């Protein structure tokens, strides 16, 4: 007898036939990644939670349209991207106001545990497009071509957004990390 792990395409096939439990298992595999991606984009836990639910509901309804189940992750993140930016467009004035009073300079003497907050702040300073490029590449591990599919833009645009973001983050974060390392030694 051969045992093999139930893979996403198996669950997708069952979910397409109306098996809600199979879809719930699929959700349990992806919900945390989708939630964290959305959280960094919309910068609000309740919004991220609401949008996550909306994403998985839309994904379920659109499963029959998914051409290649092997590309489920990119397809799911494209839905998440569309939902997040739809929310950001609706809440633009509020978001812009909330985004303004960020500190100009981060404390360069942070402890490693505090670096997480510093990274969050540094990511918050990027434009939404740049931040999303970093989230998809650095935290979700998508290739440039996959990112272009998710964002529905050319690879050159993806690289431009990501490279600019990395230059900004390098200027902000690298000195802090060096200081933290010096503090440890």
């Amino acid at each position, binding site marked *: 007898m051969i045992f093999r792990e139930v893979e996403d395409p198996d669950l997708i096939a069952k979910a397409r036939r*109306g098996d*809600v439990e199979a879809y*719930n298992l699929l959700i349990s595999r992806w919900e945390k990644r989708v939630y964290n991606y959305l959280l960094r984009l919309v910068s609000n836990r309740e919004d991220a939670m609401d949008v*996550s639910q909306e994403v998985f509901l839309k994904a*379920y309804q659109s499963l029959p349209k998914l051409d290649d189940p092997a590309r489920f992750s990119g397809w799911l993140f494209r839905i998440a991207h569309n939902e997040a930016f739809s929310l950001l467009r609706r809440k633009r004035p509020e978001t812009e106001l909330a985004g303004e009073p960020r500190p100009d300079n981060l404390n360069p003497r942070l402890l490693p545990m505090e670096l997480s907050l510093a990274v969050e702040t540094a990511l918050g300073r990027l434009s939404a497009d740049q931040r999303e490029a970093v989230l998809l*590449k650095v935290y979700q591990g998508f290739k440039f071509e996959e990112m272009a599919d998710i964002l529905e833009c050319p690879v050159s645009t993806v690289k431009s957004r990501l490279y600019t973001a990395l230059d900004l983050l390098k200027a902000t*974060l690298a000195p802090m990390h060096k200081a933290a390392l010096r503090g440890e030694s």
Partner: protein
Amino acid sequence: MNCISPESKPDWKAYVLRELGQDAHRQAEAHLATCSICHEEVATLRLTLDTLSMLREEEMPRRIAFVSDKVFEPRWWQRAFSPTFAAGVLVAAAILVHGAMRPSEIPQAQVDAAVDKAVSQVEARHMQEVRAMYEQLEVRDKQVANMYSNAVLIR
């Protein structure tokens, strides 16, 4: 050795993000081993990515799950296209067609008459065979008797 022109520099961001092809990656590594400026640039990029990795993934406030509901169930035409349902429909149709094509019920008396006729035909054929067998036996008895009488004469 240091970089002479910026154009000759490899794409270091693509390098640290593992987006270079095999050949370009090998060439970049060879360049990196000899260029202190690029070495410093790559070290800073790696440090930035290391720092970004310090961002903690948050737990969700609550889990997402759906319950089976009419909203989620496939529509009748979606069910009709499922292989299991289609196979069931075909089997049911085959049974109905077979039932429709079967001849109607025959009266018992007609059946009994047909059976009696078939039995009497078999019995008649059997009697003919028995009679033929007797005739053959009688012929054979005569032949044997003749043989005995001839033998007595020869002695």
